[in-house]
């Protein structure tokens, strides 16, 4: 069959470009052709949707792997285009948002003369403070390692604004926690108690790593759909990885006895709860037990006995 013409318009109806393309071509190939005619809009920046059905605000998003024919697109069909803005790779964002805390906290530890210039006498750091610094830096080193060696991302890019937003959050809290944990007037909790708590926190970190590996192995290379996670803590908790992460921070806050540590833990838990709820609902909706699909088992969303 011959090539068909696809009319690409913006959501306000303004024509962007017309593309000649084979009907069996994929949406991904369509994006490449749009990019060829509008060099500003590389494929990662494009969101293409079908025209909205009567009564709905926006149409279905077109996935890159689908063929035009499978989406009901023929000669003269209209597709809506949205510019997602400058995109940045997931790995890039993760690296920068984790690298910051990894160096900021130790900076407060090693250079009190910079961050507490008014302090005339800076006492030697307590054992708890030393372990806390190592734990914190180690945690973020782990996260960077996972970014490049473990995680498989569902999307390739995100808007560049997220980089600034995420880095503000991570760098801000890193400084806020580090400032008090390394303060000249820091009061150390009992050593033995804290060391036990750091050990428990490390166990939770290892649990978190195991959860990440389980999640990574859910998808075979190339697969992009959702699967039901299972094994280890996932049998009881949908977002077991978040659970382990939060518990690690709870232990850190108790081990260091810093209110700022607690605030950081609460902020992270709040955001993770929102994500967890979304993921849990999505999985329940997808795996409804009908048409041969498995039914999503009864599980806690993120925190056993609570949520």
């Amino acid at each position, binding site marked *: 069959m011959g090539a068909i013409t696809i009319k690409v318009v913006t959501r306000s109806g303004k024509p962007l470009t017309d593309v000649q393309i084979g009907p069996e071509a994929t949406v991904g190939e369509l994006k490449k052709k749009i990019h060829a005619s509008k060099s500003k809009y590389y494929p990662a920046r494009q969101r293409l949707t079908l025209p909205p059905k009567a009564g709905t605000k926006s149409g279905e998003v077109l996935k890159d792997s689908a063929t035009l024919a499978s989406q009901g697109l023929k000669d003269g069909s209209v597709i809506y285009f949205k510019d997602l803005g400058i995109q940045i790779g997931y790995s890039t964002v993760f690296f920068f948002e984790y690298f910051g805390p990894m160096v900021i906290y130790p900076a407060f530890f090693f250079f009190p003369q910079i961050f507490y210039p008014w302090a005339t006498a800076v006492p030697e750091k307590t054992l708890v403070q030393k372990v806390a610094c190592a734990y914190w830096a180690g945690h973020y080193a782990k996260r960077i390692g996972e970014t490049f060696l473990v995680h498989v991302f569902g999307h390739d890019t995100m808007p560049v604004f997220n980089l600034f937003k995420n880095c503000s959050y991570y760098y801000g809290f890193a400084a806020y926690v580090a400032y*008090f*944990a390394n*303060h000249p*007037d*820091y*009061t150390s909790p009992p050593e033995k108690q804290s060391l036990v708590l750091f050990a428990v926190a490390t166990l939770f970190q290892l649990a978190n790593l195991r959860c990440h590996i389980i999640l990574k192995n859910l998808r075979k290379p190339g697969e992009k759909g959702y699967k039901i996670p299972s094994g280890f803590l996932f049998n009881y908790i949908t977002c077991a990885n978040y659970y382990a992460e939060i518990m690690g921070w709870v232990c850190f806050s108790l081990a*260091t*006895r*810093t*209110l*700022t540590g607690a605030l950081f833990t609460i902020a992270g838990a709040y955001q993770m709860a929102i994500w967890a709820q979304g993921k849990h609902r999505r999985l329940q909706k997808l795996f409804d037990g009908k048409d041969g699909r498995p039914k999503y088992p009864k599980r806690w969303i993120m925190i056993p006995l609570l949520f």
Partner: protein
Amino acid sequence: MGAASRAYLVAYNAAQAAGWGVCLYQIAGALAAGGGPAEAYRAGAPSAAWMQCIAALEILHAATGLVPSNALNTFMQWLGRSNALYRIAQAIPELHANPAAALMLACWSLGEVVRYPWYAATAAGACPRWLTWLRYTAFIPIYPAGVAAEMVLMWRALPFIRRRGIFSVAMPNAANFAFDYATFITVVLAAYPYLWWGLYSTLLRQRRKKLGPAEPAGAGKRD
């Protein structure tokens, strides 16, 4: 929305409107009796303190989905006004003589006696066009005046906060936490114009939507 929820919202918003109406009335009364800014502020402060306390309920309304607002935003706005009222104006009596204190209360109550009736009428499903117009127009002068008054008060409060160390925590302590209220208020002051511009421009945008050209025939009742 169920009939009970609707009735509750009508009652709640009507009560807030009445409370802030009392505040405005008492400020006007104090001025009419020949009082100065301090008398005007002190006349309005008790009712303002009550209504602001009760307004914490709105965070619950948003969190439970009773109203479509974002719970975190509602909480932040409630926190902001509560701070200005309880922890700046009420905490430092020397500020009462500053006209900004009475102006702040006046702006709040003028805004609320328009906003809350609009909420009540909308919840009741019987909101007249003029009330919608008022709700989306009165804020235009009132917001900036109120924000300016709040900022003047915070600025004037700083020397007192520093001297008295109020609401501040020093190290060492068991929670390894310190909080310098003066620094906090300075940061808030710097952020204030940015925060309030966000709210102001959102309202302006909503104004264009709600007070825009009339809907085509057959579109049904507005709001």
